[in-house]
């Protein structure tokens, strides 16, 4: 139970900048996910919150306490590592009790806590075993149990599910959330898997190259990505991008990519302002496969060559190379598509995301409307 506050946190290793200007407020009992590709700094940030690494700049606060100089063991945190970090020479019971013994609790007290947590995680029958006798999923639960039994103010989880097979991972996600609801502590969870982030987090922090790109609920990130990176990172399949040039004729502003041309509504035209090129992003589900290639008002109609078709049961993802970019359409399987085929894609203008060609920043959000 703690509020976490990161103020201008930075970290460098000699000449390499791992983190820069990270500001983040985490509310008490929130489940926050740090997500980003490898090298984005998410694990480094987590370790700084833990105290396993020291920041080069900035502060970390737990509630009203500045914890920069507070030792790892005194921060009232528990951590679950990617490789579990279980003590190989101790039984599951001892693994879980080890941290408690440090705090000088009565043995009966420790015993009660360990058993209660083991029950919660369904590992009671494993208490006498050694880690090497357990499966990956079981070790994961023990690692979780070891953290839970400490009853900390903050839970820190560093890609705990990365080493599990896909099926188990999905199962464990639900387990972790269930446990979080039961223990009422603040949790910070690191993953590189954006699907995991979207399904688990109250709020998500997208990181890239050591900086926080955007913080928000899954819906906020999905609907209003603040830059091209977030837009392309969140969402499956990924958003498609094409580069368009800006045409101004009188009061009208339009975007052009090869033969395709789409006019912009006045409020959006303002945001485009003085740019000469703009990057347009389209969510796959907003694209439909159409048969007539004629331009329609207020739509982006573009033709391209199909590169890959991914069949996914009831729907298919069609990856199309268009002039100045690549778009992916998520459509039903009613209309069969083959690679090398030339197809026409259409999306409503109000569903287009516009990004600055140079900085990647979002220029204007799509108009909210029908889902």
């Amino acid at each position, binding site marked *: 139970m703690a509020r976490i506050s990161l103020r201008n946190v930075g970290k460098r290793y000699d000449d390499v900048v791992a983190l820069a200007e990270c500001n983040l407020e985490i509310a008490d009992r929130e489940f926050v996910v740090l997500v980003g590709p490898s090298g984005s700094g998410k694990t480094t940030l987590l370790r700084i919150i*833990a105290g396993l690494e020291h920041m080069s700049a900035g502060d970390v606060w737990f509630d009203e306490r500045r914890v920069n100089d507070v030792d790892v*063991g005194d921060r009232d945190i528990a*951590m679950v590592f*990617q*490789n579990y970090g279980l003590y190989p*020479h101790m039984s599951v019971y001892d693994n879980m009790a*080890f941290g408690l013994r*440090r*705090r000088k609790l009565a043995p009966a007290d420790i015993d009660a806590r360990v058993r209660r947590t083991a029950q919660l995680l369904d590992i009671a029958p494993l208490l006498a075993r050694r880690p090497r006798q357990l499966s990956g999923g079981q070790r994961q639960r023990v690692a979780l149990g*070891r953290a839970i039994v400490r009853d900390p103010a903050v839970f820190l989880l560093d890609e705990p599910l990365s080493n599990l097979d896909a099926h188990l991972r999905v199962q464990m996600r639900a387990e972790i959330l269930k446990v979080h609801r039961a223990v009422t502590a603040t949790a910070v969870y690191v993953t590189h898997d954006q699907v995991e982030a979207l399904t688990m987090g109250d709020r998500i922090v997208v990181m890239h190259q050591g900086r926080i790109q955007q913080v928000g609920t899954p819906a906020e990130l999905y609907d209003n990505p603040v830059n091209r990176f977030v837009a392309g990172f969140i969402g499956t399949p990924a958003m498609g991008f094409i580069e368009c040039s800006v045409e101004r004729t009188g009061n009208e502003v339009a975007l052009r990519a090869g033969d395709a041309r789409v006019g912009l509504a006045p409020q959006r035209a303002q945001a485009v302002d003085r740019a000469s090129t703009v990057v347009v992003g389209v969510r796959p589900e907003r694209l439909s496969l159409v048969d007539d290639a004629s331009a329609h008002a207020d739509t982006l109609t573009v033709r391209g060559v199909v590169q890959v078709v991914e069949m996914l049961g009831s729907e298919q993802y069609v990856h199309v190379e268009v002039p100045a970019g690549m778009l992916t359409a998520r459509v039903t399987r009613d209309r069969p598509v083959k690679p090398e085929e030339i197809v026409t894609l259409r999306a409503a203008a109000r569903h287009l995301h516009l990004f600055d060609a140079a900085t990647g920043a979002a220029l204007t959000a799509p108009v909210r409307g029908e889902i």
Partner: protein
Amino acid sequence: MRASRIVQAIALGLALAWSLAPIYWMLATSFKNELEASALDPTLWPHAATLDNYRGLVGGTLPFPTFFVNTVVTCLATAAVAVAIALPAAYALSRARFRSRGAVAYGILVSRMLPLVVLLAPLYLLLLHAHLLDSNLGLVVGFTTFGLPFAVWMLKTFIDAVPIEIEESARVDGYPRWQILLRVVVPLILPGVLTTATFVFMDAWNNLIFPLSFMTTLEKQTLPAALVVSFTGQFKTDWGGMMAAATVTTLPLMVAFFAVQRSMVRGLTAGAVAGV
């Protein structure tokens, strides 16, 4: 392809013969009586086997049991002391980045490279002034000059192999470093600790130059030095007796060697194969 198999088998046989023949010779000679041992045309195996040579060790003019005890005591002490002092340093070098880390590591490397003879005169004078000449303690001090750097280096490679997450879990649990070392790391590298101790033990057992230089009283000598001294004295032409003494000197070392032989590989290769 059978031909090459046969050649390989012969080669292997030769290698085994080459490795074992001298040791056999030592053992065989130790059971020969004086006449047979110094015969001009040596016999392949003892025709008149006798235990006299071994009996002579216990009852003879030179106190071999005492030499044996001296050697065991000093070598065990060196192993224990070296490992105990080296463990924390090896842990620090393995786990932490601190400013003088490079200097310390380099210094230890240089210590390992040091020709012992360079230290001989000053160490002699140092021990002389500290009244430690001709004493087991002084000898242990001498042995530590090579035992300690070696132990640090070898223990470090074993500690390097322990996944850092295990220690970080303990840190998160609030355990101070020294307790993490003792309660988490050491139990996990126990075979490595024993291997290191054995290596130090063996190195000390093998050392001749320090006992020869620092011990003046014969009764306090170690086995290797005693062998050298006794050769000019008791065993002038008694090769049987000499070989018996040699066997006794060899046995503990061989036992220790084979006890840790398997674990030895990891300690050697972890450092060697991956780089210094």
